[in-house]
């Protein structure tokens, strides 16, 4: 018995070799091309110059603001007036005489205890800061200039010019300029998150508050303590919980109205653009081009056009989502309608049903799961888009977020909004997943 061997130069073998070579080429060429492109992009985006542009000090401010707050102790050098304010905001200013215990005022002399032995003193002569392990930093204004007296050499964490001296330490920052002297003390937590300084509930612990809510005497005779607390939190001037919650609601509203509105508009159009329902092919063709046009113009441009006509607000955002998604839904709905099983429609037709009845009983039940699943998928993705659209049209949480970021100082608010946005998106995600499972039988997880 002879074994059938295929010689290396038979046509089949040659073909195999060629195919292997081609595959090997592809498996090396594709990563190679990707790598080349990324290298090009690396230089086109000026990544090497990024290190120079990157502001790591900004990153540090941002990170520390995310979990802490700072209190400013400011003296106006002309009037000698002392202000103690959380984040330096008017809304967070301590009333005179109610300063935190690390600030003490005795006549002209103000002492700020930053902890760990760091002590700042303002007095009539100027100001000085004691830094443990380094020494005394003394600043006096002399003839319109600032004179610094500190142990030599001056370290890098002290910045000196004729008009300004800045000291940055782990315990806090200290700035002296001709007009004012400021000390920043950093403390963990988001201060005044529940109650602002002017609230009667400020500075009370959880159990004390719970006790007041249940059994305490009424702080405000007109309402119960619990209601008063709720309204104090809701109307918090520093964190503006009421506005923020409205903004979140507006964002969800934009997504909901836009998506559902788009689906309602797109359903009849989808029928008209499906070849098995619309015998007139020119109309069908025209509609498809309209869908393509709407999708091509893109949400950004629709948003701009609409915000010119309707002004900023959630309705503009909802309409922008509606128009953009009407194009997408029109396309996908008509495709779903073209892929239906004609047998069911035949069956309904055989009972003498007219076109509308055929659509209602033969078509709609078939496509509903597909359409619903698509609509819900878009609802959750539009919750994210609504954040961005809100930033453009000026509504919802997107607006608050961009405002907070462009002011570049209230990073704790940015962190708060980010947490809320992520929570909102996650809740909408699971809600739409739950609805999909509930409403659509046999949908094994969906998208």
């Amino acid at each position, binding site marked *: 018995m002879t074994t059938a061997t295929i010689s290396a130069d038979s046509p089949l073998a040659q073909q195999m070799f060629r195919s292997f070579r081609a595959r090997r080429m592809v498996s090396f060429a594709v990563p190679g091309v990707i790598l080349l492109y*990324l290298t090009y*992009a690396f230089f*086109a*985006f000026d*990544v090497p110059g*990024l290190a120079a*542009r*990157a*502001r790591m000090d*900004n*990153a540090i401010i*941002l990170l520390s603001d995310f979990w802490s707050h700072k209190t400013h102790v400011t003296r106006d050098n002309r009037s000698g007036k002392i202000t103690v304010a959380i984040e330096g905001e008017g809304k967070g200013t301590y009333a005179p005489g109610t300063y935190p215990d690390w600030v003490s005022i005795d006549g002209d002399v103000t002492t700020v205890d930053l902890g760990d032995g760091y002590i700042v003193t303002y007095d009539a002569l100027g100001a000085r800061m004691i830094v443990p392990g380094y020494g005394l930093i003394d600043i006096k204004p002399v003839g319109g200039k600032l004179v610094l007296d500190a142990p030599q050499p001056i370290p890098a964490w002290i910045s000196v010019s004729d008009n300004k001296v800045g000291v940055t330490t782990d315990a806090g920052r200290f700035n002296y300029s001709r007009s004012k002297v400021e000390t920043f003390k950093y403390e963990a937590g988001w201060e005044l998150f529940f109650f602002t300084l002017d609230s009667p509930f400020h500075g009370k612990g959880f159990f004390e508050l719970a006790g007041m809510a249940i059994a305490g005497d009424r702080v405000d005779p007109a309402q119960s303590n619990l209601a008063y607390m709720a309204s104090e939190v809701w109307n918090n001037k520093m964190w503006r919980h009421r506005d923020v919650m*409205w903004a979140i609601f*507006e964002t969800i*509203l934009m997504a909901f*109205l836009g998506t559902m*509105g788009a689906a309602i508009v797109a359903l009849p159009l989808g029928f008209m653009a499906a070849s098995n329902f619309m015998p007139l092919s020119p109309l069908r063709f025209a509609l498809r081009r309209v869908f*393509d046009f709407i*999708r*091509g113009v*893109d*949400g*950004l*441009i629709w948003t701009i*056009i*609409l915000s010119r*006509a*309707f*002004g*900023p*607000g*959630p*309705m*503009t955002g*909802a309409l922008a989502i509606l128009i953009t998604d009407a194009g997408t839904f029109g396309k996908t709905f008509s495709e779903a309608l073209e892929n239906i099983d004609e047998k069911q429609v035949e069956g309904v037709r055989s009972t003498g049903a007219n076109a509308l009845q055929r659509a209602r009983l033969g078509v709609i*039940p078939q*496509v*509903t*799961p597909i359409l619903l699943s698509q609509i819900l998928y878009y609802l959750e993705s539009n919750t*994210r888009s609504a*954040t*961005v659209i809100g930033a453009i049209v000026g*509504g919802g949480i997107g607006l608050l*977020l*961009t405002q907070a*970021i462009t002011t*570049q100082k209230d990073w704790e608010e*940015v962190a708060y909004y*980010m947490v809320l*946005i*992520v929570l909102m*998106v*996650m809740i909408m*995600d699971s809600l739409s997943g739950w609805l999909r499972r*509930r*409403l*659509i*039988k*046999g949908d094994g*997880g969906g998208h």
Partner: protein
Amino acid sequence: MADIAMAQTGGKPPTLHNATEAYLAMNRRKRMYGGILLLMFIVLMASGWRISEERNAGDFLPGVSQLLDFPSEVLSEAWTNRANLPGYFIEFFPSLIETINIAAVSTLVGALIAAFLSLLASRGIARWPRMIPVFRRIMDALRAIPEIVIALVLIYVLGGGPVPAVIAIAFHTGGALGKLFSEVGENADLKPIEGLSSVGATWGQKMWLGVIPQVAPNWLSYTLLRFEINVRASAILGFVGEGGIGHDLKLAMQWGQGRYDQVVAIFLLLFITIVIIDRISDHYRAKIVKGN
């Protein structure tokens, strides 16, 4: 198929003689649930639109009549200056390329992140099966953070330029594609992996030789779809933040009258690009999936 699942919670299974009655009762119940749902939906929609109109700066009806004012103003000005358009096309072409580059790089990087995460998060092929929920949550978190949040924060830290946008879109893409990729991965045939295990392949080899060839067409198709989405996202991020043609559009818009010819040039560039990319990606996706 499309029945509301709640309607199934019937009582006892019907016996033969009361089947008609039971069917009719079920039908009535279904209709009632459907009607209630429809009513709720209508109330929600109507009150939603009312609230949103109240909180909007402009009302709906006056707005509709003004809807075409802005486009016609823009178009008429651009029409009188139509001779400038070709020049603007050339002027803004580099920013368009930047926008596309942002989308392409972030899609590539995002797809790599997604591929890696999805292999670790798919049942049957994961490296550490116990860690699957962890990697899934990572993907969820990446998906949940909108691009604009990351982009704006990074602009503050990294300064302007395209890199913040790339990172932002790549993160989001990683999460979004990761979910789709892992769905494909879970449906992969496990036999090639068993075969590879029997010859002593490492996990990396099993993935590279046993899984990737199976899932590549579908992954590629999703990646192309994502590229389409990311081109749009990168234009929008340019408008809100920095970089690319979106930024040019914002500058031209802020200038307002007198630069509407630029606005139209950018609109057109963006429109043509999006349509072309849509077409190419549609074509290749159809081909890839059919070839599968």
